[in-house]
């Protein structure tokens, strides 16, 4: 996909360019808010990454201008101040996601994938049943079955599985899961995600031959998109 990045730190911008390019994306990096606005309104990007603090126009102003121009392109804000108020301000201005600096590259990649997918999914009807091979999650009756066998899940496990299935084929990082499943805006000291994932695994994977839920070391978790 085509990604526009506004990052005034040249070195970091270069790394982002290199990293995202090697992940197979087409990247435009600009170091100034005005250039970012021009690029965003004149070319067709799948997703836009805006640093919050940049010379010229700052990221928030660029975001407001993009939205004022009627562009619905998904926007991820990069910020050094990862606080509730900043998030609210950014999300109010029309940002789709938020990532605090410094970040793991895998985290950025996972979030950008999720955002681009959200853009595509717009308009298509909400599915009532999510599937991965022989695993089925009925969102209406809140039932989980694998190979026709009913599996009991706690509400947290259900939400975890639902999140992983909705983002099937895309890595979900720890912080993404903490936000989406548990609504936590911070990373707990204890291993909350690991514990819940391991419990979910013992219910949906352990009794079966094929393992659906994979751990991506240093990145997160994924349920593969199958044929």
């Amino acid at each position, binding site marked *: 996909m085509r990604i526009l990045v506004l990052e005034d730190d040249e070195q970091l911008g270069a790394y982002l360019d290199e990293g995202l390019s090697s992940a197979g994306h087409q990247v435009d990096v600009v170091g100034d808010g005005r250039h970012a606005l021009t690029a965003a309104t004149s070319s067709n990007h799948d997703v836009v990454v805006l640093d919050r603090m940049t010379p010229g126009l700052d990221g928030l102003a660029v975001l407001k201008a993009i939205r004022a121009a009627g562009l619905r392109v998904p926007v991820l804000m990069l910020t050094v101040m990862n606080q509730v108020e900043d998030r609210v301000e950014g999300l109010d201005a029309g940002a789709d996601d938020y990532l605090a600096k410094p970040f793991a590259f895998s985290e950025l990649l996972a979030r950008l994938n999720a955002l681009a997918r959200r853009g595509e999914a717009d308009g298509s009807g909400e599915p009532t049943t999510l599937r991965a091979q022989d695993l089925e999650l009925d969102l209406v009756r809140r039932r989980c079955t694998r190979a026709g066998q009913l599996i009991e899940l706690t509400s947290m496990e259900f939400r975890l599985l639902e999140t992983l299935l909705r983002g099937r084929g895309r890595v979900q990082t720890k912080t993404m899961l903490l936000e989406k499943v548990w609504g936590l805006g911070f990373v707990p000291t204890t291993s*909350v995600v690991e514990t819940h994932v391991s419990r979910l695994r013992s219910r949906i994977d352990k009794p079966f031959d094929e393992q659906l839920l994979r751990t991506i070391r240093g990145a997160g978790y994924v349920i593969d998109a199958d044929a």
Partner: protein
Amino acid sequence: MPELVRRLGRMAALRSALALTAVFVLVSLLAGGAAAWLLEQELEALVDTTLTERHAELGAQLDAAGELERLAATYDEWSKSHRMELWSFETDAGRTLGEPTPQVLETTGYSYVDLEGIFPTERDDWRVFVAPTEGGRLAVAVSAENILESMEIVRNTFLAVGLVVSLVAIAGGLAVGVATQRRHDRILSTLQAISDGNLSARVSPEHDRDDVDTLARRIDESTARTEKLLQQTRGLSVNIAHDLKTPLARLRAQLEREFPASPERESALGQVDGVIESFDGILQIARVEAGDAKTLFAGVSLTDLAETVVATFGPVAEDSGCTLALRPLADPTVLGERGLLVQLVANLVENSLQHGGTSTRIEVGVTPVGIEVLDDGPGIPADERSEVLAPHYRREQSRSTPGHGLGLALAKAIAELHDAELSLTDREDGRGLRARVVFPARAFLTSS
């Protein structure tokens, strides 16, 4: 009603205005009363002087004449024609002359006597002076009608003047008091807004008449200065964050991109992440303490919040051999920022998990006044309890356990943001730690 009285009692300006008015009214009533009394004394003295003179005059004539009968007739006549004075004389031998008024002769000195029916005057009060004279006891009397009426007029006048003065004083006092109180209230509500985190609140006095206006102006000036300083400080911390975090981001990116995956790289990344985590923690405490999040306050159900924490950390506790249970004794809703409150309770639960040891039983209790986390671990020695709430304090025995020592400090900052009190005490049964978050009464939207 008692609430109203209590509130009125706390309004200093109104109270002192009313107290001053009360003193003024009391003093003017006392002064009026004293003046009336003095005037009456003066009037009485005047009448008494006349009576004494008349007594002496008559006494001298009686003494000189000897012709009692003639004299009696003359005076009787005179007295009747004047209709206002009368006399009677009792000789030592017991003979009575003049008006046959034995009740007069029974008295001595000056006195008021009721002589009903002697003269057709409106009042029957007479002022009488009785004293011995040559050859007997002589009584002279004058109708007290005029003097008593004068006294009544004096009294009524003073009463009327006193009443009017009091009413005017009370109305004036109330008006001054209410006006001053209103100015005080304006300053008070502004200070309340400022302490609630709204540093752009100003008293903006309309005039510059007196020291209250000056006080208001000084408050506005110092608040403006504080606001500016805080903005500068915030700008500074944002700049520091930006200046430090961007290089950290660069370092992290370089580690990730330029070195092949290896245990060494993971260890280096872990150290960078540790620095970032500490840094975020410090920044978050600073931001929570700045109070900006107050603008995001909304109703938060404490039971719902406790359920979230128990559902999230329950499995973590079980995996380390502990238990985490919910004990909802009430379901209050408080005004707060949900995300931060979850973090508060989560930090308390994690503290119990990390320091409680294996097979600790942890309970998250919801009470009508707040939320508490209890465990049956070793607890914290009393002399360390206040210190564990300070940033970066780590207990000797916990140096080996994970965490950057900011969890409880952040919990305390979040509690303070909500004007709630975080306390760490021994449990009542003495076994384990009890961490309580007690919200102030005004934070509750509903309670059960």
